Each structure stands twice: as structure tokens, then as C-alpha cells.
């Protein structure tokens, strides 16, 4: 029954350091990616991000606990909220012998969270389609703030100011030694983050991703090309909110409880925005970099804290807020596009392009010697346009060259 090994360099246990680090990193990757889909790619500034995450965590956690207690027959007629600690302790003890149920619980909670998140996203899409950015920002911020009040004061859901515990599906692993449970929770989170990254990267590389950018950059143009802007925006909000809600539910399993005071607009709306701004607006790989940098700053501060505290009269935690706020302003001023700029959209691969242009790398007779693939494509496109009597910009340029 031994826990994880210790790996100590420079006075820091790297195993104990990196598990929460990676957990946090993966969590914020997921949330920031979903925000990036809304804000970076589609141009919906979702200032109520915390609403969707907290909604997923609250409903997922509340349903998982009740369901587990019901299936395992724990608690009987006792009030779930009042006797929460006792019921969940018993549930956890029973779950050790029932790994299938543990997995089912996670899956069901994720589904519930996705449903709740999707529903909230659907509701949020109603104003998002109709309001300007500034009004929308105020509205979503207000709704999210109010939701926090609801969580705090409406006791039947997650106990209000008395937080409730969530059944621990990883409880079996905690019997194997210290740290093993956290390792498993971390792996689940990382797998989820990778899945979300792959999915969103597929989405933004698809024609739909290009449509989203078109909607962001020029609404009228995309509408003129026959795209349903409203429907697209709605879908984006639903999908992104469902993802964020699932991240919230996973987080509540990881910490083992749902509390209203976790869900502040600072940690769950501001931080994701900060990550998107640092990493790169409209760039998923930038989010990975931004989230890493952000996690490093935050966890690094935590490591330094004990050494710094004796010299400072106030709680070192406040430095974190000041530092992050200044970081945001500096980033906005110096490099608003983020560490990694938005790339132009991904096009077809070389083989397919070759087929379209009718050449497979070799010469086909109709190209000038030394001509690159791109210029060949543009020339072919130009000849296509000419056949239809359409003036291309290059035509105009050439015409003006001739006359001038």
C-alpha cells in the first residue's frame, strides 16, 4: 500500500507538483477552448462563461449523488441535503465494490451536464442573436451573477451555503495509496481535454469553421453567401456551453464537492478570457500555450507564496489578482492577437490540390517553367473567371498596367 513515488529536485516534489498542475491545465484548456470557439472564432463575447460551467457542475453533481444513493439504496427516506455527508460517505464505500456503477455515474453526470449546458446555451443564444456585443456582455454577466446567488440561496439543489459532497468515482484508487486517486482523476481530465481539442480542431478546420470566421469578420458577406448566421451562432453557443458544463461536472468529481463559492466570475470567466487573450484569439494551439503559461504563473505563485509571506503584511493571494489583471492589460496593449497569431484557414492537402489543378507535381504543358503551385492555381482560377466574363482583381491590375 504505497503511494506515488517522490521526485524531489530543488526542494520541490515534482510528482506532487505536477499532478494538480496538469489537472488544472487540462481543465482550463477545455474551458478556454470552448470560449475560443465562441469568442475567438464566432465573435460572441461570452461574459457569462461561469454560468454554463457552474450549471454543469451543479446539476451533474446533484444528479450523480442522488442517483448513486438511490441505486445503492443508501439513506432511505433521509433528506439528501441534510444528511449529505453521511450518505455520500456510505455511497463512496459501496462504490469501491462496484466499478461499473462508478463509471456509469461519471458518464451520466457528464450527459446531464451537457444537457443542462446545452439548454443554457440555447437560452443564451436568444439574446446573443439579437443584441450588440456591449448589451450582450452586460446581460450575460448579470445572468451569471444572479445564477451564483441562486446557487448560494436555493438549498434543495446543491445545499446553498452548506456545500454538498459528490460521490467519488475514483474512490477505489484512493485505497491504493496517497496520490493514486489524483493521478487517475488527472488522467480522466487529460483524456477529456485531448478529446475536446481534437473535436474542436476538426470543427474549426472544417468548412463550418471557415463559415464561423466569416460570420465573425463580415456578417453581411456570409449571409449573402447563403449562410444562416443565426443558426450557426446558436449551434456554437449550445456546443461550447455543453463542453464547458461537462468540464464543470468533471471538476466537481475531482474536488469531491459542489460549492457555490467556487463559481466566481473571476475564476471562470475572467481567467478563460485571459488565457484566450494570452494564447491567441481564434487559435486552438495558441490556447494550449496560453493555458500553460497561465497555469505556470498561477502554480508558480503558489510555490513562491510561503517564502514571500513573511516579508509582506498582506495575504500573498491578492498579488495573484493584481498580477493577472496587469498581465491582461499589458497583453491587450502590446500583443492583442496573443502569443500565437491566428493562422489563415487550413486548405486542402497537396494531393487533392494537385488533382484539382490537373497536375501531379509534374509539368502538364500549360504552365510556365519555374511556376509555383499557388500561382498555377490562381492562374487557372483566373482563366475560369475569364470564361465567365468576370473581372478578377488581377485582370484589373493588368489592365491598368497596360493602359498606364
Amino acid at each position, binding site marked *: 500500500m504505497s503511494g506515488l513515488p517522490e521526485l524531489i529536485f530543488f526542494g520541490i516534489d515534482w510528482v506532487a507538483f505536477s499532478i494538480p498542475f496538469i489537472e488544472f491545465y487540462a481543465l482550463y484548456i477545455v474551458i478556454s477552448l470552448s470560449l475560443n470557439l465562441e*469568442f475567438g472564432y464566432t465573435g460572441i*463575447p461570452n*461574459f457569462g462563461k461561469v454560468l454554463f460551467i457552474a450549471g454543469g457542475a451543479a446539476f451533474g453533481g446533484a444528479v450523480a449523488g442522488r442517483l448513486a444513493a438511490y441505486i445503492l439504496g443508501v439513506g432511505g427516506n433521509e433528506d439528501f441535503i441534510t444528511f449529505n455527508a453521511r450518505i455520500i460517505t456510505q455511497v463512496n464505500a459501496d462504490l469501491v465494490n462496484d466499478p461499473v456503477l462508478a463509471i456509469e455515474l461519471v458518464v451520466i453526470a457528464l450527459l446531464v451536464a451537457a444537457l443542462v449546458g446545452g439548454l443554457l446555451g440555447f437560452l443564451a443564444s*436568444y*439574446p446573443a442573436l*439579437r*443584441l450588440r*456585443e*456591449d*448589451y450582450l*456582455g*452586460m*446581460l450575460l*454577466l*448579470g*445572468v451569471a*451573477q*444572479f445564477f451564483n*446567488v*441562486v446557487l*448560494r*440561496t*436555493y*438549498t*434543495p439543489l446543491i445545499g*446553498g*451555503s452548506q456545500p454538498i459532497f459528490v460521490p467519488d468515482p475514483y474512490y477505489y484508487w484512493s485505497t491504493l495509496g496517497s496520490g493514486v486517486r489524483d493521478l487517475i482523476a488527472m488522467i480522466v481530465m487529460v483524456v477529456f481535454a485531448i478529446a475536446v481539442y481534437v473535436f474542436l480542431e476538426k470543427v474549426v478546420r472544417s468548412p463550418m469553421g471557415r463559415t464561423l470566421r466569416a460570420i465573425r469578420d463580415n456578417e453581411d458577406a456570409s449571409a449573402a453567401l447563403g449562410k444562416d448566421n443565426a443558426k450557426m451562432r446558436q449551434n456554437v453557443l449550445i456546443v461550447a456551453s455543453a463542453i464547458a458544463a461537462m468540464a464543470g461536472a468533471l471538476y466537481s468529481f475531482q474536488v469531491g464537492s459542489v460549492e457555490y463559492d467556487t463559481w466566481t466570475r*473571476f475564476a471562470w*470567466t*475572467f481567467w478563460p*478570457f*485571459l488565457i484566450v*487573450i494570452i494564447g491567441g484569439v481564434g487559435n486552438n494551439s495558441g490556447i494550449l500555450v496560453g493555458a500553460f503559461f497561465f497555469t505556470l504563473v498561477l502554480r508558480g505563485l503558489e510555490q513562491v507564496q510561503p517564502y514571500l509571506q513573511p516579508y509582506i*503584511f*498582506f*495575504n500573498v*493571494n*491578492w*498579488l*495573484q*489578482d*493584481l498580477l*493577472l*489583471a*496587469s498581465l*491582461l*492589460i499589458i497583453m*491587450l*496593449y502590446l500583443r*492583442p492577437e496573443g502569443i500565437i497569431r491566428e493562422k489563415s484557414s487550413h486548405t486542402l492537402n497537396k494531393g487533392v490540390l494537385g488533382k484539382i489543378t490537373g497536375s501531379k507535381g509534374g509539368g502538364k504543358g500549360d504552365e510556365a517553367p519555374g511556376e509555383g503551385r499557388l500561382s498555377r492555381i490562381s492562374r487557372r482560377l483566373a482563366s475560369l473567371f475569364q470564361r465567365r466574363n468576370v473581372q478578377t482583381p488581377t485582370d484589373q491590375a493588368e489592365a491598368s498596367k497596360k493602359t498606364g
Partner: protein
Amino acid sequence: MVPEYLISALVYASLFAMMAMGLTLTYMTTKVPNFAYGSFVTLGIYSSYTAVKVYGSNPYIGGALGFVVGALVSALMYLGILRPLARRGSSLVSLMIATFGVDIGFIGVFGVYTDYLQYNLGHIDSPQFYALPDFSLWGYSGVTFAAPLSVVAIVLGIYLLFTRTKFGVAMRAAVENPPLARVLGINVDMVTTVSWMLAGGFAGYAGALLTLQLPAGTATGSNLIVEIFSSSVLGGLTSIFGAAVRGLIIGGSEILVTLGLGLGFGTPGAVVIGVVFLFGGILLIRSKRLRSKVVGIIFAGFGVWIVADMVAGFPVDFMSYELVNGFGPNVTPFQQAIPLLIMVVTLMVIPQGIFSINFRRLLGRERK
């Protein structure tokens, strides 16, 4: 003797009117909703706390201090952060995110300051404190008179400024059409800075007065942002007097509706009435005639109020809420539902604010 809840409604309403006017001023001049505006209220709260508890002086001197501190910090925020960003060509959303960031910065600042008060000066109640002592006049607390009178003074002052002084006219010009105002030789930057100063000052002053009525803390101002936005949006973000009126309505309705309606109808009756009004209102809004549309809005709003009152009937943990959020026992937490719902309804139905409704046409005096 006037009932207690009427007094708290009056004070609450006056405070919101001041805050809403400030936010509207900044929105009019810069076109950016200031998410950090709630923190300026907190600045006023701690100015008052410092004046009373640390220096043992009068809370109304704290109010003046709150005005000055709020004005200075607000000007600093505009000149130091928003103006450079705007000159750099930042988008509206970037500026909104920046004000959000400033709000986070304020959390850190208040944290450091309250820690200083706690550990260095021994004021252990500084992160959360009860209402400060106030003088009383004819059996009522001083703030009962001070808050409404201040609103009247501010509205009158702004009216005179806008209509009787050269600077005020320049301000209006700068709001209406900045490039044209610049051509005419108006210093638009100066005008904007002054309106930011006034806005921060109003928030700080309102915050200082708030400490006389309610318990307050580091998060109080930040949590009020829903009501402040709602008041401003409802007034129409472009009308400063609209903001004052709506601030009064929002503040008053929050307390009167949640308390009054519940006493009058009893819960089941209230639900039925509320739902009937809500649906009737929605049906009317859908009709083509403008007059029935507006009647519908009023009906729906009334229905929403009553339903919100039902919401307020949920089991409520008064004590913890009071301690955490800094509201008094007269204020139920769910009352925030009312400004929020009002905000949603307004944004959806009359996005330009109530002052945009053509009341003449409503009354039938003017034909299409």
C-alpha cells in the same frame, strides 16, 4: 411613522439612481460598458469606512472623500488604461475585457487594503462590516434625507451643467458627434475625462452612503453590478435622466415588490395572478398595435414581478447571505431577479430604453 421598508426602498432607489447616472455618463462618452463600475462603489464604501473607523470622523465627510477618491481613480483608469488601448485601436470587446481585468485588479487592491486595516491597524471587521453609525433627525436616520436630496442635487446640477454652461454644452456636443465637436475646437478628451471623473465620483459617493444603510464589504459593489446595469440599460444607455428615473424604479421595486406583494396576496394567489399577467402580456406584445404592445409590456412586467416574488419565497438562508454579501435582513437575495428580469425584458422589447417610447403616439394623440 413611515414603515421601515418604504424608507429602505427610498434610500436604495436613490443610491441606484446615482450609480446608474454615473455608468450612463461613461457609456455615453466612451461607448464601453464599464464592468469595473461596481468596484468604484466599493472604493466609496472603504473611503467611508476609513473616515469613520480609522480617523473617527463624520460619515458624510467619508462621502466627500468617496467622491474624490472615486473621481481620481476613475480618471486614472480612463487615462491610464482605456484611452491608450482605444488609441491603439482595440475593439469594443477588448475594451470590455480590459474593464473586466480592472475589476479583478480592484479585488486585489481591496484585499491588500483590508489586510492592512486588519493586521496593521487592528480593524478586524474591515472585510465585512455592519452599517456605520448615522445621525438621526425626527426619528429617521440621516441617510433617509441625505440620499434622496443628493439625487435631486445631482440631477439638478447635471441639468444646469448641460443647459446653462459652456462646458456642459461642449459635453453634449462631444457625446453626440465627437469628430464634429473636435472640428469646433472642443477638447473631447478633456470632456471624456471629466465625465469619467463624475461617474467615479457618483459611484464613490453612493458607496459611502450605502455604508450608512446596509452592511458592506469588499464584494458589495461588485455584486451590485446587476442592478446598476439594469438601471442604466432601462433608462436607455444614452439618456442620463432616464438612468436616474430607472435607478429609482429599480431600487424601489426591488424592495417594495418582493416585500409588498408577498404580504398582499399570499403565495398561491400570487402565482396564479403572476402567470395570468405574464401570458396576457406576452399575447399583447405580439399584437401589431403599438398601444397594446406597451400595455402588454406593462402586464408582462407586472407578471414577472409577481413570479419573481414567488421565487423570493424559496427557502432563504438570511444570516449567511447577510454576512457573505453584505445586505441587510430586509433584502432578500432573490430580489436580484427583479432587476435582471427587467433588464432582459427591456433589452428584448425596447432596447433603446423607456425614453425611446413615443408616448404621444401611445396616447393616441398622434396618428401614424
